[in-house]
């Protein structure tokens, strides 16, 4: 079992979700986060004082998957979330030792 975590631009979320759904992904968990990276935050001005906002709003997706599905899903997310402009985000994969569905107590891939 693997966990794929992706940081993407918020307005790409709907597209990514559609693609994943189309590939049979049944669920995912979304967090609104702030990203810091090469992409510069916007500049704001309040009564003549100029601030650079350091953090850029991003969306973090977590998707639990069976190991063999990982590569395809990562590619699919890259496709769906790419704009080609700086700040498109990252995807990373970690190993998961066990998954349980709370409703039923099912374990492993049955829990997805």
């Amino acid at each position, binding site marked *: 079992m693997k966990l794929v975590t992706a940081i993407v631009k918020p307005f790409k979320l709907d597209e990514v979700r559609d693609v994943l759904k189309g590939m049979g992904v049944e669920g995912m968990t979304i967090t609104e986060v702030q990203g810091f990276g090469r992409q510069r935050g916007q500049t*704001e*001005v309040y009564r003549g*004082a100029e601030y650079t906002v350091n*953090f850029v709003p991003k969306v973090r997706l977590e998707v639990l998957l069976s190991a063999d599905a990982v590569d395809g899903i990562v590619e699919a997310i890259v496709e769906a979330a790419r704009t080609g402009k700086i700040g498109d985000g990252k995807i990373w994969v970690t190993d998961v030792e066990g998954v349980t569905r709370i409703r039923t107590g099912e374990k492993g891939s049955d829990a997805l």
Partner: protein
Amino acid sequence: MPEIDSGDTAWVLMSIALVLFMVPGLAFFYAGMVRSKNVLGMLMQNFFSLGLVSVLWVLLGFSLAFGEDLGGGFVGALDFVGLAGLGEIPGLEGALTIPPIAFVAFQMMFAVITPALITGAIADRMKFAAWVVFLAVWSVLVYAPVAHWVFSPGGWLFQRGALDFAGGTVVHINAGVAALALIVVLGRRRGWPGEAMPPHSLPLTLLGTGILWFGWFGFNAGSALGANGLAAQALINTHIAAAAGMCGWLLVERIKDGKATTLGGASGAVAGLVAITPCAGFVNTMSALAIGAVAGAVCFLAIQLKYRLRYDDSLDVVAVHLVGGIIGSVLLGVFADAGVNDAAPDGLLFGGNAELLVNQFIAVGATLAFSGILSLVLAKVIDLAIGLRVDEDDEAQGLDTTQHAETAYSFGDVRSLGRVA
């Protein structure tokens, strides 16, 4: 010159304040409905009307609207530019019991709020600079003449006997058709109608509704220009039409969609207020109730028009102000009651008299044509000159940061960290 009556003056001064307060009310009514990245864009388009149009009104607009008629009832002369030589208002000599400068200020607030109504239609995609130009030109070239036609005793529709107590044609139809013209040129928001664009804060919209309802008492009952029985009748009519509008909208919504929503309640009240505007001082209380209820129900249904015809009237200015304004202006021809106000003839219902109804249709048609065409041309010209619309990236990021370099809300800890440049 009749004497200035302190009671009448007190009521009109207060009414000026009430109509002023409608502008922030409207701003919040609309701002609550947009997504959180466009809140300030919406607020600013409204608040700036207070700044710019007020200045233009003093410099030019009042004179065009209420100056001595230049002939034909089309527009006023430039005698009052900068409010110079303001003595009596042409056609109201001997009739006003309030200081003329109070009349100027009262009418100024109408000039301010009318273009502000348009902003609901263009939400989320218009450049601020383009809006500023539209606002300035429209308030002088479109609003002032229409106000002259209808409100000035020298205006051609006034002369014909078309009635408009507080702005069904001048304010609501005028703004509503201009909104339609502007969005025809501006185009739809990206993603509309497929993407959900839910209101970011209905409490703000409800706050705006409360302020609008409160202020509308000044708008309509203030139009009696005195504190008397007519003002009181206009006030209760205004209130009961809003109440009935709320009930009407919610009833139909409940039947159609299964739920009575708060946004529906708010919208129905505004629809009732719009429709009663031209009628407030000419109909009796039960007629006002009927007009409000009809407006609530019909305006709700009229929203479907935009899905049929595929124009993106973001916050339903057409369905509420254009349709609501037409309902009120036309029903006035039906419900007008000389027993309420002997300055007006009985309408179809109480006098069996279709003449007024005809005049109302003429007034509606003339406003639609004049304002619709001029607004379309104006929008097109601005679009060619400087572009009406923000670019794709800016639309995605929102008007707040791209047009005003600000963010509406910073609740979390992270947003409020950062360094000064």
